[in-house]
């Protein structure tokens, strides 16, 4: 029972914040907050592939797109009808929409996971730069595919997606993806991933099935990117292939690298910083991208390990430092 306390507290906090924040914050700030949440999910999911397992994946936006369009298509066809049926059966709207959203997100995530599997396969034989290029290529191919499929809108975009995503759902997924990452990291499976990152040949020689773990990393990373895409779709209610270009992939990588590859808390921090900065830089809008580019270059030169390196922000460690006397007593 004690184990369920944590998740329960999180749920309650989310529900409270959900009803409160939207009323308190102005709509612009609220939207930024939602985008922060979505970017956290993207960064933490990419961290699993790049940071934990050391696989150069630079096409993450492709998975986000797959999830976005997949979930959107579900909602526009089946989901909406499901909600209508439920509401007609006296189910409260919030619950019906939540259920439909959950289903849409899972389906979108699964579609993205399938692509993750396909992209992960070449990772088995390619290393470093080559793998990076292949993942980039796949990301672009997914985008070009979307551009050419008329039924999902193509270059005109896909409008009219029901607005089912809100603070609660976005940050619930944030909590889930962080929990999954942390729990994996503190397990023998996480160690296997780190071993692959540090020395794949030695890991293999010790009995780690590197093939399986590399693919698993890609699939899980892609799944959550897809869910992030689904949340994105169901919040903005309109999708356009231009949201999922290589530039978006770079933005996500920048978050993982800035935070420190392998550090979950680092990815979270960096996602927050990098989502807020463009908003803060709005006054100097024309210089924004130049500043961003300079930041990447300077960061790689001066502190390539990012803010936190591979370490995690630990409440435990911070508290311990304040009570040295007690431990010695």
């Amino acid at each position: 029972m004690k184990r369920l306390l944590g998740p329960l507290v999180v749920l309650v906090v989310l529900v409270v914040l959900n009803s409160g924040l939207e009323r308190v914050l102005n709509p612009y700030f609220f939207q930024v907050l939602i985008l922060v949440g979505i970017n956290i999910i993207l960064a933490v999911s990419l961290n699993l592939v790049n940071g934990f397992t050391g696989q150069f994946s630079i096409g993450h936006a492709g998975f986000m797109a797959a999830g976005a369009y997949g979930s959107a298509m579900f909602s526009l066809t089946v989901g909406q009808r499901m909600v209508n049926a439920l509401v007609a059966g006296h189910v409260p709207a919030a619950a019906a929409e939540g259920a439909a959203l959950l289903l849409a997100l899972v389906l979108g995530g699964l579609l993205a996971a399938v692509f993750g599997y396909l992209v992960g396969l070449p990772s088995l034989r390619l290393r470093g730069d080559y793998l990076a290029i292949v993942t980039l290529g796949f990301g672009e191919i997914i985008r070009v595919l979307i551009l050419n499929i008329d039924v999902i809108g193509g270059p005109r975009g896909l409008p009219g997606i029901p607005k089912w995503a809100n603070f609660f759902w976005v940050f619930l997924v944030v909590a889930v993806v962080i929990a999954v990452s942390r729990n994996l990291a503190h397990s023998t499976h996480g160690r296997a991933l780190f071993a692959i990152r540090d020395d794949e040949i030695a890991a293999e020689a010790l009995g780690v099935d590197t093939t399986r773990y590399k693919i698993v990393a890609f699939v899980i990373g892609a799944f959550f990117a897809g869910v992030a895409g689904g949340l994105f779709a169901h919040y903005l209610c309109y999708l356009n292939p231009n949201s999922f270009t290589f530039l978006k992939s770079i933005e996500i990588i920048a978050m993982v690298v800035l935070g420190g590859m392998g550090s979950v808390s680092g990815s979270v921090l960096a996602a927050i910083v990098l989502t807020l900065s463009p908003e803060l830089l709005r006054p100097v809008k024309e210089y924004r991208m130049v500043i961003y580019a300079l930041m990447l270059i300077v960061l790689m030169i001066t502190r390539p390990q990012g803010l936190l390196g591979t370490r995690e922000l630990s409440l435990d460690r911070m508290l311990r430092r304040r009570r040295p006397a007690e431990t010695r007593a």
Partner: protein
Amino acid sequence: MSAPLLQLADCTMQFGGLKAVANLDLVVGAGELVGLIGPNGAGKTTVFNVVTGVYAPTAGRVTFDGRAIAGLKANRIACAGITRTFQNIRLFPRLTCLDNVAVAAHPHRKAGMWSAVFRTPGFLADEAALRRQAMDMLEVLGLADHADALAIGLPYGQQRRLEIARALAGKPRLLLLDEPAAGLNPQESEDLMRLILEIRRRFSLTILLIEHDMKVVMGICERIAVLDYGVKIAEGGPDEIRRDPRVIEAYLGEESVHA
């Protein structure tokens, strides 16, 4: 000789035009401590790579405990009971010593990834057991104090020990040590010799050892096989090998034989 645990039959490993290992017959009996020596480039590490599955042999058979293992993936062979250390230390630099060793215990895990994600009681117990196994191994090799230190921070001699601890944590039946004494001073080499004999006894291991330090080889190996340019040129006990003219010639050149 006891029942053969590892058997290489007519094994050849060819890279393009180069035969790194040519028609090698080698048998290691259960419980034996066998040395594999030869000049640099003789193909010794290639033999290890073939046995552990890094390469599939171009020709020939490799049998472990009666089972054909040639061409199997390296991780399957490790799970079957063969682990190794590397000529150039291959620790996981960003992991702690404990985690380095714990990775080797991974094949013995019981809890799957879903249990890990949900932190089920079964997973927690399994995880504790794995960490305990790793800790025990660190203690056996006198590295328990460094459990939480990053592997890359250790002095060289201790890094070599850590690699051995890690290989042992996989609970192998056959342990392959690739130049474990490289870079060690005479005192450290003596400690290593004692360590190898101790772990063989304690864990009922069979050990195949590549080494250049003749004191170590002659000191602990029961049987020695000598490779030169991929071919086995001699095999026998330490005294035989020490006096074998072909061995002397391979190491020191023809003049020494007639000197």
